[in-house]
């Protein structure tokens, strides 16, 4: 009986742990402490109940909630010539152009290097809903990006979560 209980508990935690493991073919990473994995249905309800808009893509695999933050990230692959794979500087400038065309309030945009990996990080908001986005440059036709969506009062938590997330990212050998 004790064995069965032990086995059941192990199984429960294993399944829970598997659910928490972020999926990416491009990078290895750890989600911030305390973040819980969401199914798409759970995410749908949370967005519906708490936000007017969603910047979180609809067809990705990695969704997490950490207090008032929604965190999502994804791989992206482009089979185009290297000359059409733009640098982070070009993307930063172009995204600012699109955000300005859209009359979004841009809080900041910057390119930072953590553990020898360059990241473009930019944040914009509509009313009190804030979108903190990040992405890497290309490596073997692939890059990695993500978003943290939150309400303005959670901004400090979001920045801390982003810092933790980016610190954990390593490109996988491809």
């Amino acid at each position, binding site marked *: 009986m004790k064995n069965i209980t032990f086995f059941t508990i192990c199984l429960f935690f294993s399944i829970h742990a598997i659910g928490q493991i972020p999926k990416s073919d491009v990078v290895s990473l750890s989600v911030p402490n305390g973040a819980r994995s969401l199914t798409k*249905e759970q995410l749908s309800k949370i967005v519906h109940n708490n936000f007017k*808009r969603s910047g979180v893509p*609809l067809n990705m695999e990695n969704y997490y909630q950490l207090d008032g933050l929604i965190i999502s990230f994804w791989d*992206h692959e482009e089979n185009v010539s290297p000359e059409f794979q733009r640098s982070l500087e070009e993307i930063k400038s172009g*995204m600012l*152009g699109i955000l300005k065309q859209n009359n979004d309030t841009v809080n900041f945009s910057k390119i930072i290097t953590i553990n020898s990996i360059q990241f473009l990080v930019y944040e914009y908001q509509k009313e009190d809903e804030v979108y903190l986005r990040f*992405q890497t440059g290309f490596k073997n036709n692939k890059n990695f990006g993500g978003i943290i969506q939150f309400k303005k009062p959670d901004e400090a938590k979001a920045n801390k979560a982003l810092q933790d997330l980016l610190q954990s990212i390593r490109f996988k050998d491809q």
Partner: protein
Amino acid sequence: MNLPYLKSFKFYLIICFIFLCTALIVYSCKKEKSSNKTPMVTDSQMISLARQWYDAKYPAVNNGKLTAHSTGTGTQDWTKAFSPYWAKANTFVIDSLAFIELPALKKGDMAMSLRSGIDPKSFNFSKSGSLTSLIIVNKKGTFYLYAMTILADSAYLKGDYNKVKRNTYRNRDGDFTGEVFYNRMDGSLVNGWKYTNGLVTGAISPAAAGSAPGQVTQSIGKKHVDVFQETDCTTTTTTTYWESCDYYVDDEFYEYPFNCSYYTTASSVTTCTTTTNGGSPSAPPPCTPPTGTPDPTGISVQNTKTIIDVATTTYSSLTGGIVDATNNVGTTQCPPIIPPTDTAKKIDPCKLKKHLDSLAANATVANANILIRNKIGTQHEYAVDINLAAFPPNGSYKMGALITDFNLTSVSSNFTWNSTNGYTIDISHDHPQGNGPSPNDVFRLYVNSNNTDLDNAGPSALSYYENNAAITTITTSTTYVITGVDYTTLAAKYHQYKADTAAFNNNFRDLTATYNGDWGEALLAIFGNSINLFESYYNKPSFNLFQVINGKFTQVNCP
């Protein structure tokens, strides 16, 4: 041994056997007869085949997944707005064609209305009296999908908005008054019927090009010496109110909408009613010939009067339902249709790429682009029109004036189509911040196609424009060229864009961010292959073609 009881038993056994056989034969005949007459049999195999066909034809929507925000789907792509509720499929047979009627699961909401001018954001969908279902027709193994929208009259509803649900493809309430519209899944109207107290009293068809709303036409003819027919036709505008929302992939029944936007689309329809010998009104057959087909009824327009030489074909009784001449569905109610002759020629995008490559070497075009590139540092958008010097083109070009509104993210242009200023075939402009073409840039192609001078120049000029017009966007690193492929789709998307520009642009921004800064991929996610996207890296002599192939953003290897 004499066993009378056994003899009696055998006798009863034979009687029972004969009775059973008779019952079996009668039952089997009855069953066959009933399946012919009232084929209300749910044929799970046919539903399964239809579902397989639907899943293959509309792979992006069959699994309930939205791979991108829905704003980019377009008003004329109804498959993105509706999906079949397979669990509630109902099958039946009419005129040897198998039909499946399914409730439509709606991603947002949609309602047709004869009332225009209502702010779509305040439109009350629950009190629209409009109900849309999906109809799948199986004709000799080929499936066709239509949307049926029942629009009930307020006199019929009497405030009971659920009453509209009593009406189906085959059955209508005895007192049903209103209209039924059948649309293809690209949003185009196939035909429709007007009902008064459950009876067909008018035939609805797409309005002919140039028909003005409110226009009334009359036709008078004599089919036989003793039969006098008068057909009155009225052109009206039907407004479709749309609520477009985003849903997450697991939201199978679209219960949790967000990012909703509202807009309207409008279509002109002609409703014709025939009166014979002063009797009760009925409907002429709504047999719309396919585009480009000579009109079999021989209609000739004289101001607002239409004189119809009544076709000598005798029509079977009008039963309502879909009458689609293109797919030959329901056309037993129609005279024979002359097959269409498709004269439209699509330009091969790889040939267009070669044309752009040679055009880039043209001195006028090259100078225009250099002029624009040199203005990037001003942090203002500049534009210059590249015009054909003559039309039909003689190979020479002339440059229009340099224009700027001293704005970082927008610039106007000066499209012309005349011999004085030239015939604008390209508008070159810069994006100082380095982003590629925006949806607004794409829509310049469509907006300019409606220029009055171009319109007055006739169909060959318009056709030339649509096949060759370009918008060039120049950044420090890249030259982008967009050309139009499908102006019908561009028109539909433009109306969506105008109805809620902020939502459209938000969608473009989110898609660009999701594709990690690839605005070309985002643009094609919205417009698909209704445009061609060419990119040339700075100082490279040749353009590259990008298209959506098998749902993926692809750099095409042109020969």
